[in-house]
């Protein structure tokens, strides 16, 4: 589907009209509004009513200690900034009106000791206890099954508490943060280039996305633009990462359906992708490529060789995909499973393939184009049904678009010819900036503050954290045996959410 990009002027006019005198600063697609703390919730509701999607709420130190609520609004990031006084200990909760803010506000309460007044479920989030299980549905024949934190298979640690009468999933609670490693605080005092290394290790399977979002936030704070070639190489690595992630989902779903040849075939396609990434930059996860100011690596693989590989890969993929989607023992398990509707996804602020599978055409690459994406053509793939099948269809469509994007980026690189400079020196500077990318899991946003050439503060809004509540909401009439299909169709990462 081709879409019209919303006019950013329009967003700014609206904000100026509604928040007279509050408009503070509006660089590079970000609008900051300064408000008193007590007015934050009303302003947030006003924005949400106009269709703004909640991104995150966090404490920033620049330009002064403030509570910041960030929204995606008409092709911009709209940030509401409320200065915090020394003794500020509470503020009116956003999640009273915006369910999408629930986890972010619980986290804020744990991290900063700020109480969101009126929060509907203000319990500690960051260091969950695997044994603290609560049974909500009480009856003679209902019982609680804790799935996790040690999972059945090679999966990341997370706990799903299922209440069941035997087959139906009567209630589900998903508890993230078992892998909370305190990484946001670890950024403080690091040099920007080390920050990119740390960002890569927040969610390993989305290393490139994290390094890019972090680096773009640094670049926004320092008001620099990396060279065109660096932006194109970032696109190549980011789209290869998307291929690997979507193939991982396909492999896991085939495994759930016990299709052993399909598992082997898609496992080979994924491994081939990881190997070509290693041949390109030395790391199977594209690590060490993206740095603030550009890219760091020397290219090990000739673009022409990569293009040949893409051809062979697509030839195999098309046949495996066709066969997989014709295998009814597979598709039967996905069709109708874990169905979401558009309203639920909008209410909970869903992002990525999960949102696109209910027909919401949200994609950071398109809404707020960054790097080279403004100059490259691609379609935002959507589906309508909102079930596990729709999510897989979206992923397969995105694989096709990623291949298209990589080829376009390589064409442009070839046209530019010999490498001049892939990395800019970072100027000295202070201040904060937002950076965002469309990670394989959905929109990923970084807020980075710099002072004296070092990182002062970082906040990460992870797509997985936004989408876990949607996973819970998707269980309607589904049974226990659908569980792994539904979970894997979401393709989320616990490490990214937990940080």
């Amino acid at each position, binding site marked *: 589907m081709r879409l019209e990009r919303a006019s950013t002027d329009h967003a700014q006019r609206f904000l100026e009209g509604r928040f007279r005198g509050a408009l503070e600063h509006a660089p590079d697609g970000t609008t900051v509004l300064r408000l008193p703390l007590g007015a934050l919730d009303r302003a947030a509701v006003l924005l949400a009513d106009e269709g703004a999607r909640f991104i995150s709420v966090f404490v920033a130190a620049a330009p002064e200690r403030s509570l910041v609520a960030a929204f995606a609004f008409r092709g911009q990031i709209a940030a509401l900034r409320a200065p915090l006084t020394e003794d500020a200990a509470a503020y009116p909760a956003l999640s009273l009106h915006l369910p999408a803010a629930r986890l972010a506000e619980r986290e804020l309460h744990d991290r900063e000791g700020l109480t969101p007044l009126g929060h509907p479920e203000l319990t500690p989030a960051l260091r969950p206890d695997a*044994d603290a299980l609560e049974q909500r549905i009480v009856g003679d024949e209902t019982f609680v099954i804790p799935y996790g934190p040690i999972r059945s298979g*090679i999966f990341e*640690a997370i706990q799903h508490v299922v209440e069941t009468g035997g087959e139906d999933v009567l209630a589900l609670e998903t508890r993230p943060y078992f892998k909370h*490693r305190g990484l946001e605080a670890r950024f403080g005092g690091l040099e920007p280039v080390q920050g990119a290394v740390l960002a890569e290790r927040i969610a390993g399977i989305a290393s490139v996305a994290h390094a890019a979002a972090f680096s773009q936030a640094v670049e926004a704070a320092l008001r620099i633009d990396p060279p065109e070639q660096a932006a194109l190489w970032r696109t190549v690595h980011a789209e290869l990462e998307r291929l690997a992630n979507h193939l991982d989902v396909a492999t896991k779903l085939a495994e759930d359906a016990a299709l052993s040849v399909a598992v082997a075939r898609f496992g080979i396609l994924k491994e081939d992708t990881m190997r070509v990434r290693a041949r390109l930059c030395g790391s199977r996860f594209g690590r060490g490529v993206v740095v603030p100011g550009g890219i760091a690596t020397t290219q090990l693989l000739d673009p022409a060789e990569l293009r040949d590989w893409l051809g062979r890969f697509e030839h195999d993929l098309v046949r495996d995909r066709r066969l997989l989607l014709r295998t009814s023992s597979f598709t039967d398990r996905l069709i109708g499973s874990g169905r979401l509707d558009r309203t639920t996804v909008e209410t909970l602020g869903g992002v990525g393939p999960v949102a696109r599978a209910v027909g919401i055409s949200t994609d950071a690459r398109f809404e707020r184009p960054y790097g080279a994406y403004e100059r490259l053509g691609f379609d935002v793939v959507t589906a309508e049904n909102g079930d596990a099948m729709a999510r897989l269809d979206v992923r397969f469509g995105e694989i096709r678009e990623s291949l298209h994007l990589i080829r376009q980026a390589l064409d442009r690189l070839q046209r530019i010819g010999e490498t001049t400079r892939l990395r800019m020196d970072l100027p000295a500077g202070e201040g904060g900036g937002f950076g965002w990318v469309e990670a394989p899991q959905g929109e990923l946003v970084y807020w980075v503050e710099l002072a004296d050439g070092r990182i002062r503060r970082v906040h990460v809004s992870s797509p997985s954290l936004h989408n876990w509540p949607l996973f819970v909401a998707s269980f309607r009439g589904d049974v226990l045996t659908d569980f792994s299909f539904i979970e894997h169709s979401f393709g989320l990462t*616990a490490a990214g959410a937990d940080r």
Partner: protein
Amino acid sequence: MLEWIARGLRKGVVTSRYPRGAEPELDGFHGRVEIVETDGARDELEALCPTGAISVSGGLVSLDRGRCILCGACVEAEPERFRFSPAYETASRRRAGVVVGASVERQLEAVRLPLGEQARPLRRSIHIRHVDAGSDGAEEWEISALTNPYYDMQRLGLYFTLSPRHADVLLVTGGVTRSMEKPLERAYEVMPEPKAVVAAGTDACSGGFAATTGEIAGGVDRVLPVDVYVPGSPPSPIALLHGLLLAAGVVTEDGR
């Protein structure tokens, strides 16, 4: 179903011959960091490493691969002294065994016998239970890659099992977060003897970048006795395979 079988056969055999034959090394792959030159090191070298893997003592440099996250900061700053190598047989049965360079104090570490020497049949059939104790998620991908046709670890008698009660090896990723400490200990307790613990990845060896945040124990060996350390951020599938075979006693460290 027949179509799937035909599709599977068309590809032919892609499986690695490791450990019977060497796995071809990929030029330029960041498998691990080697020290090219140990002498004449300035003390400032230590500051190059964000995770404290480099130590300098009396002008001699050593590198703790159990702390190295392969970021390449040292390789970039001192290319005459450090370089990336595609080598993958990096795992060791002792923590000090993953430290390279100048004269590291070789403390005597109590080391359990490999599983294959404790119980002969275990050389041919090892069941592995994976536990994520706070990884970044990349290790899980590399571990699950071991079952794809390229590595096909079942050919070596290595199998993943779902219950720790059936497991011989506990394959742990991550530096052990507070929330995972108790579940991890419990998984270890219910395993039958003899058992082995493999710390997979730099985070599991030392905590990596998160070691100083106060949110993690700082390595699996702070919680459980570790039999094999597999450094890497993340270790490649073939490096993990080497670590598992070391725990099983199928390969030995000096048999390289």
